[in-house]
């Protein structure tokens, strides 16, 4: 529980980013500044945090 899962921004269109969760795509609104290729955490459809790549990989590893 309480383990936030990062997604990867695959596309940005204005304020809306397409975020990929293991290939599953979700549209999320950007509340913070982030770019294509960034790992982010979304909450209720809003991107609230950027996650450094190294930390994202660590989280994915822990999930396996």
């Amino acid at each position, binding site marked *: 529980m309480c383990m936030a899962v990062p997604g990867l921004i695959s596309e940005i269109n204005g304020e809306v980013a397409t975020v990929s969760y293991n290939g599953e795509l979700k549209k999320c609104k950007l*509340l913070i500044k982030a770019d294509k290729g960034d790992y982010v955490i979304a909450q209720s459809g809003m991107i609230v945090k950027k996650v450094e790549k190294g930390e994202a990989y660590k989280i994915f590893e822990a999930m396996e």
Partner: protein
Amino acid sequence: MNPEAYFLRYARPCADFMHQRKEITGKDLKKLDLMLEEKIKPDKAFIERIFYKAINPLKKLSDDYWNINVIRKYFQKEHNSLIDNKAEGFEHLTGIQKELCRVWEGVIIGVAKDYYEVNYNGNNSKILKGFVKDAKIGDAVFIHYAMAIEKK
């Protein structure tokens, strides 16, 4: 508000991530939301099964743990010390997960349509309005997962 709905205000954000990790189903999420909105009778056993990692320490606080005061004490005090002490269920969190999982107290410094700008943890950050729709600059709020949960 019933104690189950109050508990879910704090716990609900975690359910999204459990869903992403396929630990619970979309149907489970819907049921949690209906209980959160007090549209159906709360199913204590169901909530306790999903959020057992929060319920176990909550039970230690009081025998009468389905009580708003006990739940408040858990989320506003106990919860963060479990994270700090890497208690069971919280031992593998990375830095960002810890930050999001912690319950913070912050002060509103700006109000926008979709979000509040809040000073907490030494920074100014944007957070979702969540369950607090009418806060003004200067109000203190509790924050969980970058979302306003309740006013202080």
